């Protein structure tokens, strides 16, 4: 087994570069002659834009331009697109409001871009921003999802009565009704899936330059794949062929879905670069990020499950109200609908499922995909419902789950939501997870904590994730002049360790030394197509592309070797990075062969070179699943909570690099714990201001909030891809919120508490205890 072999915990090759400060993030790059842009944002949640006076701002020394929505309209700049149009239950289309890059006649949330100021320095642009005079007619705003559909609630868009963007449904409605009618028991629960501010460490940034001779832009910006940005820039914004854009994605410090989308500032940098004939750069400040990065989650969901007298789960019915924000971000309507509902049946043998999802506008930052994108919300609902049902019918919560799990002999299994699970052995994973944490011995730990005045609880969640994303992926393998093997990929690392995992796959296929493989990403000129990174798709999608491309390299190498070694191609064998004539010691190393062929081709000889590019069809996505178990202790007098134990048992298929998977799961668990316990996005109901607009007020998880997290794998190889891998990037954030909340409710259930909404802050827990004691 080589150092870079499959299943080895290879240390991440990108880390020394990034940890020593040798990475190059978008803001690290400043081209000669760069001008600096600042966005003036609406201070109001809802207002008519009456006038904008820019003369004073333009007079500020160093200011090059002040652009408004009217300028962009005059130059034919298109609106920011939403790529999804859902059909309502009545067959009509969703309401899709316009989203101009800069506000034209109204603003719909605090932070809506109103003007773009470009100057020689950021400071001058900031000073000028203060000199822009905007006259607003302030309107009543609505930021509270729970009341946004109430009669009399302020209307975000005149074209969307009761603030409804769409009213969508999926599933077997009639069958679900039938099953509910004959159920022995029905459990109902309404849960809040709280709004998350994504808060990547690296803020968004964009730097654009325009070459008037060729009419091409080069946009450097932190994305999760520049190809989608390129398409939207050309097709939707500037009305030019997308190839007029070269999008370069430098190193990226965290995306979590939020950096998938096209943002106003990227458009503004491109627009200003063309107008001014200079590179233009914009970098978000943290407070701007709170007001302009797409947010995550934000649902209020009623879930109902029907059970028979033996605790068999018959049917699931949900009504989910999902916040869209003040405008529709690129994929916003897709997240709670197609993405989220697909996993509602989870690992359980429901006979039928029906989901109604209502998308609602509020005067808040637009919502879109965030780590898991709809699947965490569905898993949270289902796992909370099952705990609640177990309590109500007096059945052990583990037994209720075990009894209803789809068994391996049913695989491939098509769920009522139409998802085809290729593999999974849920009971084995469940049992291993329970054993690892001594689930059976928990009551002794509860009693010991009670002696210390603390309420201890244990909770489990069995999650099922459905990874997704673009249906094809490309890889190109080039043998470079300097002896390296360059692998060009269409995905985009934002910190996941792609530069290591892809090296492992290449080494496995081509037998070259890992030190000789370089992963190249993030330039839409050198990589013509790419699906980007999102939906935990990268390893199995790009992995298959690398596999197919490596196969072509080997075939070409076999042909080349047969020419060089003067043997029939059929007699050439490829093993451990070497082509040789079967049964002899005559052979040639693949890198040497590639170099020799390249040299001959350069002289004009008609020879086979080894470089190859292929596009793989990603026919099926993957269904990682696993069991999270949390133990918490709560101080009932103050409501403070400590997560004292966290354990994960995952089936991510084959783990190419277990160390990287563990890191991904740790990060996901931390984010899920943050959502469950800490992160509260608060808007002022009167003014619509974001109250939790900084890290003083918005509580991010930190290392000292979490215990050491153990992660173990039970590898049930994926049957829908040749690598046997399942996407693991989101899974941690899918399993942790329900595991943590189930543990909290378990801790407080002796007081009669049956549900606590996220985030379970000290105050909320204290209030729950105080209310229960008073009752």
């Amino acid at each position, binding site marked *: 087994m080589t150092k870079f072999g499959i299943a080895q915990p290879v240390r991440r090759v990108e880390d020394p570069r990034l940890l020593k400060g040798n990475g190059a993030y978008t803001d690290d790059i400043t081209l000669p002659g760069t001008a600096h842009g600042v966005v003036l944002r609406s201070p109001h949640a809802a207002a008519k834009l009456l006038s904008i006076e820019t003369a004073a701002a333009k007079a500020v020394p160093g200011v090059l331009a002040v652009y408004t929505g009217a300028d962009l309209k005059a130059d034919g700049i298109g609106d920011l697109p939403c790529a999804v149009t859902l059909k309502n239950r009545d067959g009509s289309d969703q309401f899709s409001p316009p989203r101009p890059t800069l506000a034209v006649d109204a603003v719909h949330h605090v932070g809506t871009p109103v003007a773009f100021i470009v100057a020689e320095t950021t400071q001058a642009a900031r*000073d000028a921003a203060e000199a822009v005079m905007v006259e607003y007619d302030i309107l009543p705003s609505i930021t509270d999802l729970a009341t946004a559909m109430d009669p009399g609630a302020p209307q975000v868009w005149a074209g969307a009565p009761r603030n409804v963007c769409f009213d969508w449904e999926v599933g077997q409605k009639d069958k679900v009704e039938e099953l509910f009618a004959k159920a022995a028991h029905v459990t109902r629960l309404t849960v809040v899936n709280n709004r998350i501010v994504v808060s990547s460490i690296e803020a968004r940034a964009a730097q654009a330059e325009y070459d008037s001779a060729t009419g091409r832009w080069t946009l450097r910006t932190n994305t999760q794949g520049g190809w989608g940005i390129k398409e939207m820039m050309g097709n939707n914004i500037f009305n030019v062929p997308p190839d007029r854009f070269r999008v370069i994605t430098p190193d990226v410090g965290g995306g979590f879905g939020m950096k998938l989308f096209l943002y106003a500032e990227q458009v503004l940098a491109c627009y200003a670069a063309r107008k001014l004939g200079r590179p233009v750069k914009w970098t978000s400040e943290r407070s701007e990020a709170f007001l302009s990065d797409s947010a995550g989650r934000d649902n209020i969901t009623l879930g109902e499950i029907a059970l028979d007298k033996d605790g068999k789960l018959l049917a699931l019915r949900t009504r989910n109200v999902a916040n869209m924000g003040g405008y529709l971000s690129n994929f916003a309507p897709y997240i709670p609908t197609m993405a989220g509902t697909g996993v509602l049946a989870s690992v359980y043998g429901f006979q039928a499922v029906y989901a109604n999802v209502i998308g609602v506008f509020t005067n808040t930052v637009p919502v879109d995909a965030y780590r898991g994108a709809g699947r965490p919300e569905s898993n949270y609902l289902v796992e909370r419902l099952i705990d609640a049902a177990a309590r109500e019918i007096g059945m052990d919560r583990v037994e209720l789950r075990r009894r209803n799990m789809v068994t391996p002999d049913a695989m491939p299994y098509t769920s009522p939501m139409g998802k085809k699970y290729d593999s999974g052995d849920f009971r084995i994973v469940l049992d291993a997870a329970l054993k690892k944490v001594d689930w059976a011995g928990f009551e002794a730990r509860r009693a010991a904590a009670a002696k210390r005045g603390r309420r201890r609880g244990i909770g489990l969640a069995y999650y099922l994730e459905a990874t997704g994303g673009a249906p094809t992926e490309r890889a190109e393998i080039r043998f470079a002049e300097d002896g390296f093997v360059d692998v060009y990929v269409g995905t985009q690392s934002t910190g996941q360790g792609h530069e290591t995992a892809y090296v492992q796959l290449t080494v496995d296929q081509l037998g070259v030394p890992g030190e000789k493989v370089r992963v190249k990403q993030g330039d839409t000129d050198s990589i013509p197509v790419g699906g980007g990174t999102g939906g935990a798709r990268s390893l199995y999608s790009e992995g298959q592309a690398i596999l197919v491309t490596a196969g072509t390299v080997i075939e070409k190498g076999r042909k080349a070797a047969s020419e060089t070694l003067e043997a029939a191609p059929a007699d050439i064998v490829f093993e451990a990075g070497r082509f040789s004539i079967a049964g002899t010691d005559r052979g040639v190393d693949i890198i040497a062969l590639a170099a020799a062929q390249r040299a001959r081709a350069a002289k004009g000889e008609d020879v086979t070179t080894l470089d190859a590019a292929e596009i793989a069809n990603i026919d099926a996505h993957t269904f990682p699943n696993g069991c999270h178990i949390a133990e918490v202790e709560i101080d009932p007098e103050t409501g403070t909570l400590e997560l004292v134990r966290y354990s994960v048992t995952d089936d991510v298929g084959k783990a190419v690099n277990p160390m990287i998977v563990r890191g991904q799961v740790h990060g996901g668990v931390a984010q899920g714990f943050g959502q469950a316990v800490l992160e509260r996005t608060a808007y002022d109901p009167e003014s619509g201001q974001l109250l939790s607009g900084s890290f003083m007020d918005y509580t991010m998880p930190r290392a000292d909030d979490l215990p050491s997290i153990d992660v173990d794998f039970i590898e049930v190889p994926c049957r829908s891809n040749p690598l046997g891998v399942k996407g693991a990037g989101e899974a941690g954030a899918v399993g942790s919120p329900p595991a943590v909340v189930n543990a909290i409710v378990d801790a407080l259930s002796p007081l009669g508490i049956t549900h606590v909404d996220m985030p379970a802050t000290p105050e909320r827990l204290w209030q729950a205890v105080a209310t229960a004691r008073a009752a």
Partner: protein
Amino acid sequence: MTDIRYLAPRTLDEAVGAFAASQGAARILAGGTDLLVQMRNGAVRPGTIIDIKKITELTSIEEAADGGFRIGAAVSGAALAEHPRFGRVWPGVLEAVNLIGSTQVQGRASPGGNLCNASPAGDSVPALVAAGAVVTVQGPKGRRQVAVEAVPAGPGRTNLGPGEIVVSFTLPPRPEGSGDAYLRMTPRTEMDIAVVGVGVSLTLRDGVVAAARVGLGAVAPTVLLVADAARALIGSRLDEAAVHAAAAACRAACNPIDDKRGTIAYRTRVAGVLLQRAVAIAAERAGRV
């Protein structure tokens, strides 16, 4: 943009002179962990910044022959933590000072700055109130001494006169059988703002409370000295009734606000809980078995 004058006088007289001469346009810079943030936010725009860290009296810690301490107003939390004796005599005060901000902020932030920032939630203030600290203030009219709880006037406001600078804190000698403690409640453990903070200082003689002081933060416009809580404890053996009475006195003293960090009901309730716990810690430190 306007220019800002930066002064770093070596003597207190110079500092007071410059401060008085500025007629309100100057700000005192100790660690700068509040001032620089406020300037960056545009909340304050001083014409002059007077850095007091070059003045020895403001940056030194002295232990008097009688066992009392004098702490310069600009002494950083880190410097106080490194003092060989202070934390043994006043562990509660030290805990409170060391709760201000992160490790990096601890290298700069000072108890004098924390007091003059006049946040109701300043962490060091309730502990200093409980400790009975006296503040030395110097201004154009000379020096005066004032109880620490008399300095804050309301959120962001103090009772200091024009040109007056906080020079130092004097903590009294500690009799045998004394202990102090500070506990606070925040949504997390650091770098956030207290929703309740309680400082307790006790002196026990033969198991009976001979002296007690209680400081309460974040539940009223200023940090409070809760005399009723101290009265409930003095003369008792810290039996349940006495501690409950002290907790009730703390709750009665609360006049908090409702905000996203905590509701009135929560802050009030938790104030009593923290009082009980702080009393227990202080009593243990005082040597009660």
